[in-house]
């Protein structure tokens, strides 16, 4: 007795691709957020800036990520009033600047290697 497993090309391949795409994006998002925060932003403008530059990120991903990076000491934040509303502004911390520099070097090195492979 044996069983034949059929694979639905559309659905299964789509799910697989989505999982791999998300995995690939995860690391890049951290780099993009750190790089964008060399200039001070509050959440919404950061999300818009990244979106306009082609790195769309939803708030369910961005805000937990900002909190994590802040708790790791890579970001600084403060609540401040702007346009009569309180907003939380984020910027890169001195530690964050150092880490970003090293991450960018790593990313460029990976890119060079990948270019050679692909």
């Amino acid at each position: 007795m044996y069983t034949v497993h059929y694979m639905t090309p559309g659905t299964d391949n789509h799910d697989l691709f989505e999982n791999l795409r998300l995995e690939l994006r995860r690391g890049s998002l951290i780099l993009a957020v750190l790089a964008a925060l060399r200039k001070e932003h509050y959440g919404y403008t950061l999300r818009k800036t990244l979106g306009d530059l082609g790195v769309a990120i939803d708030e369910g991903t961005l805000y937990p990520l900002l909190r994590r990076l802040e708790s790791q000491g890579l970001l600084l934040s403060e609540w401040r009033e702007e346009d009569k509303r309180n907003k939380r502004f984020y910027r890169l911390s001195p530690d964050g600047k150092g880490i970003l520099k090293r991450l960018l070097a790593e990313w460029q090195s990976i890119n060079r290697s990948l270019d050679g492979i692909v």
Partner: protein
Amino acid sequence: MDLLDRYLNAVAKGLPEAQREDILRELSEDIRSEMEDKEADLRRPLAEAEQQAILKRRGNPALLAARFRQDHRSVAFGPQLIGPVLFPFYIKVLSFNLGLTFIIIGAIFLTLVVSGQNITFNAVFSSVLLQLLIQLGAVTLIFSLIQRHLNKYPDSWNFRGMGDGVHLDLKFPSDIKLAKPTDGQVSRFDSVSIIVASAVALVWLSEVRRHPFLIFGPAAYFLQLAPVWTQVYGPIVFLTSLGVVQAVINLFRPRWARLRTLVSLVLQAASLAVLGYLLKAGSWVTLADSAGSHSAGYSRAAELVNQCVFYCLLVAAVISVVQLALKIARLMRGQRNPSSLPPVDVPC
């Protein structure tokens, strides 16, 4: 309360308490900024549907809240049964149920000790273990069903019919041809809940007759249910089954909301009659044959249990009278103002 507040309230329920206020302020600011941007583009205030669209795009509040939690624990026996989104609620419900059950078990054993019975460690342990397993099994089963639904339909939530929040809207595969819910209809979630709860109650009712241990614990050695319970057993099973039939009909015909109103009224009145009959009985537990030579101490325990049952039945009857009066008042208000009544396309 506007849509945004309702959405944020729903998110708040799943956020870690220590950061709740901070996260909500930030999320609120983000959403308001997006709405203002949109209003500036359109040069007019947003309509409710447009606000809803913005919030819908942000996704299920429970899923959004879960992403802010550090706690990613889950329940899995092989495949994951309860994921990180529902896990905190699962723990809360389980703790509440177990806490309540253990208070009741504690009260029973205390009564037995006060009445001079010998309580062994084995009796306490087996009783606690049995309750633990029952509660764990039932709560885990219910939450794993909700998790399955959430996995299948993560975007299945809406703002409809909730005063201060949002709720999951149970959907079924289109191939079983269920009507789509709209306002004034019986929610499928309600119907499924009634069917599951009533099925569990029916199984328990049938088992408790054969295994009095399920209700008395170790006291089943010397206590048994009085004959009055045998007399009301049939009516109780019939009424529970009637509730199941109504829920099954409403599951496939959610527009027959008047059916639920009528059946609910009948069930409430009949339950009150059953409670009245039980109250008249005067004795609800008696000594089992196995009580034997220690019957003096056991009689005292039976007397105490009977007193407790009396007060419980009395409270249940008072609550039932109030509920019945409220339902009748609501029905009469509905008769005077037909627009507030559910649709009337019930087959007669």
